[in-house]
């Protein structure tokens, strides 16, 4: 009797393992063989909206203005993607996600893509089962401190308490920095940036830490921004970029080449204003980009004007940066976020 139950149990386990293996094999086969544009785009087209995961509110990346409209470089990426896939930049459902919940929301399929100033790291690629498609903002972790403290560099923060948000790489970077330099820096973790900033302004901590891009944004929300300064040095590399679920290689290609198209447009001088006139350009790279030559859009499973529509939403990468981080906005120097041929890090793969 006991042996019988044991055999039965073994049978059940084998059947379950077989089932899982079959589903797994099916999943892999689908990822390789799915015809363009792939299951994610099929689903987006069927539903008629792109589900885009964004930040809950960091000026420059994603924040609502007085009329409740989302603004930011991540938002413009979502809109460009919706324009490329659906032909309409307004057909988007934004899902604001906290640092702690963002990847679960993506894994569970609630959103198609996560464009939320999120650092691309090893653990997120492997343990979380995500694809890290492209970097749309090179940042580093910096500190915002009260000028009156008289601190000149991050190493001077010995013994200080720093407010920040939980669920990000920020706290681990501080611990790593403290460990490597021997400094002791305490952290105080909040759910949302607004609460961390409120506690900092009340004097609960000596400063606030975040990615350099977000710091400029948060500084603009303070009561007296002039009382505060961003320390010049950065303690980490934070390549912020686009995450998708692993398993749909077609979708990965579309998102990757969309990012490339926006950056190539800047490289070749294609702007929001002149994009249509560029159809009569003599440069073959431009002609491929705006869809006059080659069947590049069709190879992705879209139509050939996909990139043209994306560029016409809010402009090329340089225009996006200028709108949200330029001198008239948060006034953050382009630095690493310039194109490779202007001293920056954005190097685009060739369109051919």
């Amino acid at each position, binding site marked *: 009797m006991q042996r019988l139950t044991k055999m039965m149990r073994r049978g059940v386990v084998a059947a*379950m393992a077989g*089932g*899982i*293996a079959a*589903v*797994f094999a099916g*999943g892999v086969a689908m990822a390789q063989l799915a015809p363009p544009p792939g299951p994610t785009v099929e689903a987006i087209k069927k539903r008629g909206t792109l589900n885009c995961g964004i930040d809950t509110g960091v000026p420059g990346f994603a924040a609502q203005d007085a009329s409740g409209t989302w603004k930011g470089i991540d938002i413009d990426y979502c809109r460009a993607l919706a324009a490329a896939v659906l032909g309409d930049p307004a057909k988007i459902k934004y899902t604001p996600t906290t*640092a*702690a919940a963002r*990847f*679960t929301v993506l*894994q569970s399929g609630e959103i198609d893509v996560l464009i939320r100033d999120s650092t691309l790291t090893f*653990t*997120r690629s492997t*343990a*979380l*089962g995500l694809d890290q498609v492209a970097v749309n903002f090179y940042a580093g972790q910096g500190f915002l401190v009260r000028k009156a*403290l008289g601190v000149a560099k991050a190493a001077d*923060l*010995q*013994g*200080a*308490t720093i*407010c920040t948000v*939980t*669920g*990000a790489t920020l*706290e*681990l970077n*501080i*611990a*790593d920095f*403290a*460990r490597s330099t021997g400094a002791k*820096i*305490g*952290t*105080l*973790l*909040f*759910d*949302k940036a607004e*609460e*961390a900033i*409120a*506690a900092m302004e*009340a*004097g*609960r901590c*000596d400063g606030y830490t975040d990615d350099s891009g977000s710091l400029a944004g948060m500084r603009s929300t303070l009561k007296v921004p002039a009382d505060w300064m961003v320390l010049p040095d950065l303690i980490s590399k934070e390549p912020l970029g686009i995450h998708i*679920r*692993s*398993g749909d290689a077609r979708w990965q290609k579309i998102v990757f080449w969309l990012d490339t198209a926006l950056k190539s447009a800047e490289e070749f001088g294609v702007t929001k204003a002149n994009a249509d006139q560029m159809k009569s350009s003599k440069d073959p790279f431009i002609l491929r980009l705006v869809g006059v030559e080659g069947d590049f859009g069709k190879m992705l499973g879209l139509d050939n004007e996909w990139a043209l529509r994306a560029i016409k939403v809010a402009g090329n990468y340089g225009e996006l940066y200028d709108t949200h981080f330029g001198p008239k906005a948060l006034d953050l120097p382009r630095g690493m976020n310039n194109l490779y041929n202007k001293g920056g890090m954005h190097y685009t793969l060739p369109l051919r």
Partner: protein
Amino acid sequence: MNPRIKSWAWQGAAVIAVALLATWFSHNLSTNLAVRGMQVDFGFLASRAGFDIPFRLVEWDSSYPYGWALYVSGVNTLLASALIVVLASLLGLALALMRLSGNPLAAGTSRAIIELVRNTPQLVQIVFVYVAVLQVLPPMRQSITWFGSIFLNVRGLYLPSPSGTAYDWIITATVVIVIAAAILWRRLGLIAAPRLVVLPPILILGAVIAGFTASWDHPVLRGFNFVGGTRVPPELLALVLGLGIYTSVFIAEIIRAAIEGIHRGQSEAARSLGLTANQSMFLVVLPQALRILIPPLTSQYLNVIKSTTLGAAIAYPEVLQIFARTVLNQSGRAVEVMTLVLGVFLVVNLLTSAAMNAWNRRLTLQGR
């Protein structure tokens, strides 16, 4: 149909439905994990955590493993829960007695507080109290100072902390003796006085003696912060106040209902025997009301334990913040981490509930 067969059939159907649902959930989980090449694995608990926990009662530094972080944050959760339960019970009793006092000013005040607090959201109150606490406290360099070694400022309350082998032994021995005496009071029958009169002074005496043998570590302002001593952070204060006040109004209503559930004859009889109003309340009515109020009170206490997770919003390092946020984010093990967090709360709440039920059984009148 035979009602017994019918009831068995319904129960059987329910069991099968639950089993099917559980199977479906676990199958769903394993399939989806497999598609992404992941599996359930608790091995990460032994990896180095690498982060700092700003407030703790037990040992911790960033070289400790993730598993230990669950213990450290669990102790923080229990500390906050215990303080809130005590505060909410005392405050709740006070509000209930004010409401029943017959004095229109006291009753009106109590009623206004209860309606205001119980009709606004809990999280908003906690964040409000936190910001209020931070606004009231002075900045660090203008600390309120007592006796040159106790400091109160926006960073927290800094106290000198005692240490030493003799100190540890005397404290432990005193606590053990007092607890044993409290449990065996009647059986020992040494003194005729009630234990509540005799034991607390013994506890204080032990602490004072221990204090003389200890070496004291005084907080000193150095660089950005005070160094040394013990610190009670404003986050703990805000969480205890915010959640304590919120819970107290519900407890006040439970106590009021229980007191009103005791027949008027009881207090009238007590008064006619010559007991004062206070005596009749604390010796006759309240002990009987206790029997009615323990079951709903238990629910409130269980709610308090669960609601301490709201502390994550104001940077109090409890289980949700440390384990379900930081550890989950760093390890990426969502299923394992959330299972452990739910397990911790389930165990703590089941134990609390068991203790309250045991107390309830002891108080139940025989033959009723």
